[in-house]
């Protein structure tokens, strides 16, 4: 099969293709097979997806594995018509189709359940289902809709109360309703994007078990994005692994071991080391100690429980983990944005509460992720943003009370000095910081936080979205802080960054620390297995 030339695919309006293809497929029933051939998606010169060909049989339950940024989401978005692929084609039911928008995908029997809920919370389940249809009559005849819905629900394996507002449903019920909605919209090929991230293990097992049963009956084909080996082995029939936009391998579940899958996900990974790393002084003191810490985010969905974590002076401890496994919540507890519900955070010899005077006395610094969003005031000037940490400091002694008068002259001189020393590219020190590029915003934050002696540095995803040269410079500055004796807690979703910078590596999964290893002995595949929720090598699902 020769793929359509790109230009032709772009100019054919899907409405022109639509009528005959729907007519040809009516009445729709049974699972759909989907195949991609040479699927490629480039953003500028960067190939997020590179020549991925995958075949998912009708009635299959296929898992898509990969790290953050491996191209999983890009792949399904290309199938669903959110993105126009740069090259390659999609076959639905063995026939090549041009899907240019999500509605087109829906009309061909493809459906997708997102990681986040898309239901209207104030409406009931029944109302959510009916308004999701592409052609809802202006006046809805609820009596006949109810009869149709009851008949439909009678064919579904899911038991749901459709009369309650969605806001009152538990997360598992919402997820079921999302799936039921897709089936109600006549999806015969269902994509699930990390469907269990919001579910308890019991809810996850129930939902995936029901879907697997539907697939086995030949009613449905499922493509599930997952990070969890346990789920993949328990429910999927076949698996594909993406790595850096390319298909790294795949096969039938049962024929592949977890080590095989981890090897495909991680690949061969030489650990690069940053130059200038000095040896750790042998008996270093622990600067940060976390004991039995418990906390939860605002939604209460992501509890964390960190039993024991210590970071010593002159050491970088890297926290690896798939996004959404509690790392952000841990950083927020340390930064004072979430209050812990139990346990203790001890810095030096004090219980740490995140107040300004205390973090100044203990020399604690934070470099949060997305610096413009979390560490800067976008409309204030570069000079003002550079002054956030020290504007009220009286001399070098942290015990003295903060000053009352603002010394704008000193602020301006300090800004010019820091801009020169950290090579911040800005029109002037008075320009709003929002006018700077991402790398320069991060330089401003580093200049602010790393100029005085640091005892504890907490860094989250410091290089996310930055270009290559900025990344190298920022990593070198973090290592320089470590060499100067700071204890560094590095939270990153980029495993390469963790491997490159850390002295010790800790893996978080489901809000807990599940694995710890000195960087010298670290094996990327073992780490990857723990990130995927597989902690005890002997345990089986």
């Amino acid at each position, binding site marked *: 099969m020769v793929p359509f030339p790109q230009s032709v695919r772009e100019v054919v309006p899907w409405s022109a293709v639509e009528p005959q293809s729907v007519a040809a497929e009516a009445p729709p029933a049974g699972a759909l097979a989907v195949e991609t051939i040479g699927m490629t998606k480039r953003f500028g010169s960067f190939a997020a997806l590179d020549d991925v060909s995958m075949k998912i049989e009708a009635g299959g339950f296929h898992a898509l594995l990969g790290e953050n940024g491996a191209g999983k989401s890009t792949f399904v978005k290309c199938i669903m018509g959110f993105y126009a692929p740069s090259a390659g084609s999609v076959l639905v039911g063995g026939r090549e189709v041009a899907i240019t928008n999500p509605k087109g995908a829906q009309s061909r029997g493809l459906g997708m359940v997102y990681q986040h809920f898309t239901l209207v919370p104030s409406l009931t389940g029944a109302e959510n289902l009916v308004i999701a249809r592409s052609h809802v009559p202006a006046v809805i005849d609820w009596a006949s809709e109810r009869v149709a819905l009851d008949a439909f629900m009678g064919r579904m394996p899911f038991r749901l109360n459709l009369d309650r507002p969605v806001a009152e449903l538990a997360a598992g019920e919402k997820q079921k309703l999302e799936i039921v909605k897709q089936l109600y919209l006549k999806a015969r090929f269902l994509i699930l994007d990390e469907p269990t991230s919001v579910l308890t293990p019991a809810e996850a097992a129930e939902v995936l078990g029901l879907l697997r049963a539907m697939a086995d009956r030949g009613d449905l084909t499922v493509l599930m994005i997952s990070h969890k080996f346990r789920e993949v082995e328990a429910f999927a029939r076949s698996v594909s692994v993406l790595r850096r936009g390319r298909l790294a391998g795949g096969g039938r579940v049962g024929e592949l071991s977890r080590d095989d899958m981890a090897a495909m996900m991680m690949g061969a990974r030489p650990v690069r080391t940053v130059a200038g790393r000095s040896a750790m002084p042998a008996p270093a003191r622990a600067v940060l100690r976390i004991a039995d810490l418990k906390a939860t985010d605002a939604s209460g969905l992501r509890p964390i429980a960190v039993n024991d974590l210590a970071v010593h002076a002159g050491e970088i401890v890297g926290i690896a983990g798939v996004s959404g496994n509690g790392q952000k919540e841990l950083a927020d507890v340390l*930064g004072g944005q979430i209050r812990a519900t139990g346990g203790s955070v001890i810095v030096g010899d004090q219980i740490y509460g995140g107040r*300004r005077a205390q973090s100044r006395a203990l020399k604690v610094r934070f470099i949060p992720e997305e610096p413009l969003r979390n560490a800067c005031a976008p409309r204030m000037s570069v000079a003002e943003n550079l002054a956030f940490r020290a504007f009220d400091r009286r001399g070098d002694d942290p015990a003295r009370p903060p000053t009352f008068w603002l010394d704008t002259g000193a602020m301006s001189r300090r800004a010019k000095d820091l801009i020169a020393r950290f090579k911040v590219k800005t029109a002037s*020190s008075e320009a709003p910081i929002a006018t700077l590029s991402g790398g320069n915003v991060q330089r401003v934050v580093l200049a602010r936080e790393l100029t005085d002696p640091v005892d504890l540095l907490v860094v989250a995803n410091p290089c996310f979205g930055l270009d290559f040269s900025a990344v190298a410079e920022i990593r070198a500055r973090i290592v320089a802080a470590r060499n100067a004796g700071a204890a560094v807690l590095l939270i990153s979703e980029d495993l390469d960054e963790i491997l490159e910078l850390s002295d010790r590596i800790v893996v978080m999964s489901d809000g807990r620390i599940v694995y710890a290893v000195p960087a010298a002995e670290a094996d990327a595949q073992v780490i990857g297995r723990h990130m995927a929720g597989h902690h005890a090598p002997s345990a089986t699902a």
Partner: protein
Amino acid sequence: MVADTAHPDLDSAGSPSPALQVRAWIARRTEAVAIPLGAVATGFALFSLFLIALGKSPAGFLDLIYRGGFGSPFALQNSLQRAAPLLFAALCVALPARLGLVVIGGEGAIVLGGVAAAAIAPALAGLPPVLGIPAMALCAALAGAAWIGAVGALRAYRGVNETIASLLMSYIAIALSNHLIEGLLRDPSSLNKPSTRAIAEAFRVGPMPGMKVHWGLGFGVLACVAAWVLTERTTLGFAARIAGGNVRAAQIQGLPVGRLIVGFTALGGALAALAGFFEVTAVHGNANASLVAGYGYTGILVAFLARQNPLAIVPVAFLLGGIEASGGLIQRRMQLPDATVLVLEGLLFVLVLMSETLYGRYKVFSPHLWTRTRAAAPVMAVAS
């Protein structure tokens, strides 16, 4: 240096000459003046269309505003008298605005402050005026601080929207004040217009030297200057600006965001209440329904026209005070309804809000344009 000439935009080390920096500074400041003035001019233009539609002359209207608000010593004194409470009321908007809060409940704090001053006055009867008057002012300020500070606390600790909360609290304050004036605090001799007992002559606040305008104007200007110093020249004000600019960044820096919010809203409420204090002790002589005169709402317009800058509030309050002072003359001479001035104020407010989106859009105000030397400019043109 080669790199510097090739990319003057990115130049950080070599700073331009002082003369160019002055030009850049002027350009940046001009924007903050030109855009509100443009909004006011547009507002007057639209209002002129409104007048023409009513068959009235816009020129005559402007002439009456001038004569009623600014044209004679009497008119000027009248305008300044009305400007005094506007200064305090605008600060009740501008101070919380530093924290990114939109507080519109100043009217309630004004009324409550006036009633509090009138309520405490009999109890202070034995004191010398030099103690009694400040005690009344303090009592008024505490009432206002508690009222608007409560709005801040609801925002900081319970996430309640401060705009809605302050508006509703304002209604409660007015209802509460009416209840007190018509009940507990009512002077039995006030028959047609329920009022509190008259404040003793010794406790009345007099006019400023050489003027008929009371001391509220002087203290109002002083409060504006002090508020500017607080927000621009102290670390407290800077901390508030950080919290207003990005609350997450303020939290990461360990700043006490909750206490800053409560402190700034309480200060704003205290100042608004002082407006009520001066209305009672210098204008009315007792607290009655005349306290609910809309100064709190006009103060919102003043603060937004002044772009929340405490110093700019002074001239803007004078201008708005003049427009309000001319209302009576316009009503009589042009046979226009009393609400005409409100239409003008509403138009101005909408246009000022719309003009907020224009900042940074005009190249002529860009400091960039003015720091470039003539020699470098053609290079830039080629490069870009």
